[in-house]
């Protein structure tokens, strides 16, 4: 299906409700619809045309067009197309019908829309606060343009004692509180497990402890070329994907393209990052289930990659390589033999670890059949990355929406049919080996030439836009840029992969035992074992018991030991 056919289909079905169409490229279309028709249009895209929900971006366009714009971004993977459904709502009545009942993956996105912009999703099944801290005053929406940068409410205001409205525990269950501090996690987060005996019946999640307000910085305090450096600091593990994704997006909005060599360098660094991230994850996953040898070995193998990154970029992490229009540093010819040498060494050692892990019957027994996520459910929740590929769906942004140099060297998409924790482990291990292959191939085919585009426009007109996805080690990251005045975007929207994956957590751990929760969480590579304390409150007897984190880790490890003894 081409974009013309798609628009034809939508016009045929919805007629005058399709108010305007803006085609950026043949693969990126923005459709403006009447606010009343948002739900049917999104449903038609999702149910009938097989589109996958990515994210919602709300834009305060009151100064330009006197309205709030709400952009629901979808991806049509087989057709390599992005479709944005835009509805404009008047400021005096900032509400829009919720698409969550029809498109379940929009669950968090619409909660966030209200938190940051104050556009209410009418009919949302769970309109609680998601992003903003508990003590944030009601009715203050940071992404509105009339909220001046730096003019923030003081801590300890009217809502100082507010606490999160947790879901009430289902009858007959006990509550296990996990977090908010975990030792090896992107963000502190709190999880409440509602358990009946050992079985998890339901759970509730309060995250965004490390929300840093980066999108507001992007449209008020930074310039186009400062953002890549801040974007890189969204995540200290896979930061390069964020700066690459932002740069590709901004380049598209400005109508330029980075030179080929720069795109190869981006891809190479992205693959290097994937290797180090997957090895890091493998170590942590081993630690959770009591294989500390895996932790030590995986991190030992990973270390030369960090040294290599330092040699190429000047820093072990947060490379500072990307700028809009290209990269700042070349990969010099002298470093290339060393790069290959390191890659050879890592390949040899990684293969040894992979064989040891895959051949370990205890590990397999511990992980198989736990944290099941069937294909259908994975599709519905729109999970991404190894989590979705472990459910046998070949979704990979490098192939579906090629960026950087992946259009010239497509990687092999690795899937696994088991749909459980074991599948997600195997997918990551095989991807590490595939990344090594890509680096060799990429170095061989890397062309000579400039590393920075020469046609960067002096003035960037407002209201241009671009959208890109980049396959991070954890799944696809999405950046959406709408240009504005003052040499900075009017809106810069970021969605990290864990945002979508974590929404699948309640489904994954339902009916599992408490001992399986850490590794199931770990199999998605966000975070795990709680650090602060674990409190078990028995609802029926009113008894309360405080466990520390070791208790949870011990439960997880004992489950492994039991299998070993079998």
């Amino acid at each position, binding site marked *: 299906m081409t974009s013309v056919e798609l628009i034809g289909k939508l016009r045929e079905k919805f007629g005058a409700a399709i108010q305007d169409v803006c085609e950026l490229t043949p693969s990126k279309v923005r459709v403006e619809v009447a606010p009343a028709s948002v739900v049917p249009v999104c449903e038609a895209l999702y149910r009938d045309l097989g589109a996958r929900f990515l994210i919602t971006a709300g834009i305060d366009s009151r100064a330009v067009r006197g309205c709030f714009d709400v952009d629901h971004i979808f991806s049509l993977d087989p057709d390599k197309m992005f479709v944005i459904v835009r509805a404009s709502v008047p400021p005096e009545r900032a509400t829009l019908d919720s698409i969550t009942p029809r498109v379940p993956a929009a669950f968090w996105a619409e909660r966030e829309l209200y938190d940051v912009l104050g556009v209410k999703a009418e009919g949302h099944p769970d309109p609680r606060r998601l992003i903003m*801290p508990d003590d944030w005053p009601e009715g203050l929406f940071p992404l509105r343009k009339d909220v001046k940068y730096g003019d923030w409410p003081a801590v300890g205001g009217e809502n100082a004692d507010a606490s999160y409205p947790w879901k009430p525990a289902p009858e007959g269950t006990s509550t296990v509180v996990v977090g908010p501090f975990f030792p090896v996690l992107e963000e502190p987060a709190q999880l409440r497990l509602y358990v009946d005996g050992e079985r998890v019946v339901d759970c509730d999640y309060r995250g965004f402890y*490390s*929300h840093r*307000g980066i999108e507001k910085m992007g449209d008020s305090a930074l310039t186009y070329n400062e953002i890549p450096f*801040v974007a890189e600091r969204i*995540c200290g*593990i896979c930061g390069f994907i964020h700066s690459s994704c932002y740069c590709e997006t901004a380049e598209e909005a400005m109508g330029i393209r980075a030179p080929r060599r720069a795109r190869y360098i981006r891809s190479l660094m992205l693959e290097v990052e994937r290797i180090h991230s997957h090895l*890091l994850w493998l170590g942590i996953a081993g630690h959770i289930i009591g294989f500390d040898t895996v932790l030590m070995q995986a991190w030992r193998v990973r270390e030369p990659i960090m040294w290599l990154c330092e040699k190429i970029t000047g820093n072990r992490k*947060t490379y500072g390589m990307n700028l809009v229009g290209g990269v700042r540093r070349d990969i010099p010819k002298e470093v290339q033999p060393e790069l290959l040498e390191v890659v050879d060494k890592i390949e040899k050692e990684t293969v040894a670890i992979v064989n040891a892990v895959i051949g370990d019957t205890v590990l397999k027994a511990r992980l198989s059949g736990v944290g099941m996520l069937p294909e259908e459910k994975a599709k519905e929740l729109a999970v991404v990355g190894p989590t979705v590929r472990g459910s046998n769906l070949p979704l990979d942004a490098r192939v579906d929406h090629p960026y950087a140099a992946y259009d010239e060297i497509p990687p092999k998409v690795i899937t696994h049919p088991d749909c459980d924790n074991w599948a997600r482990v195997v997918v990551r291990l095989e991807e590490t080996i595939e990344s090594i292959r890509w680096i060799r191939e990429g170095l061989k085919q890397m062309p000579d030439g400039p590393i920075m585009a020469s046609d960067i426009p002096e003035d960037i007109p407002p209201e241009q836009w671009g959208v890109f996805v980049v396959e991070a080690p954890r799944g696809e990251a999405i950046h959406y840029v709408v240009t504005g005045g003052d040499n900075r975007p009017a809106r810069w929207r970021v969605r990290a992969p864990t945002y979508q994956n974590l929404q699948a957590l309640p489904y994954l751990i339902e009916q599992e035992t408490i001992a399986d929760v850490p590794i199931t969480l770990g199999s998605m590579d966000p975070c795990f074992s709680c650090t*602060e304390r674990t409190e078990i409150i028995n609802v029926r007897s009113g008894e309360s018991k405080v466990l520390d984190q070791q208790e949870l880790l011990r439960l997880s490890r004992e489950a492994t030991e039991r299998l070993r003894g079998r």
Partner: protein
Amino acid sequence: MAISDALKKLFPKSLWVYHVNVGACNGCDIEVINVLTPYYDAERFGIKLVSSPRHADVLLVCGPVTRQVLPSVKRVYEATPSPKLVFAIGSCACGGGIWHDSYNILGGADKALPVDYYIPGCPPRPEAILYGVAVALGLAPKKAAPVHTKQKFLEMLEKGEVPGPQLVAPPGDSE
């Protein structure tokens, strides 16, 4: 008595450290873990990562303090038995870093806890983290003396009694 001598007296045995992420991007966190893995192996100095603040002597704080995390991190500090030390690890924990003026950020770790030592870097190298802890405990000598700036110089500068700083082109950049 120098502080390092006092510390030797207060913490004569192995240091148990507890790692707190108060809103970090994970860059510092993975370097903290890295310090414990074979190439750096902090355990040979008796430094051990523990999983409860109640067991810890030292808190390693990473990241800028967010509003949401503030009450929790204060509770972690209270749960740590005295005597205790707090290390701010990374640029964000040292002063808020690039996020210092954002709406959800209160600033560096010292906005929430009394910080004893600062280890800057984005992220600090594992060697830097080890070195910082070793210097604090008097295991390694300090290599840099603290720089004391004097207000008087600024006054003289304003009055024009001393020449101000001049821009010098980097070598190789001149015509």
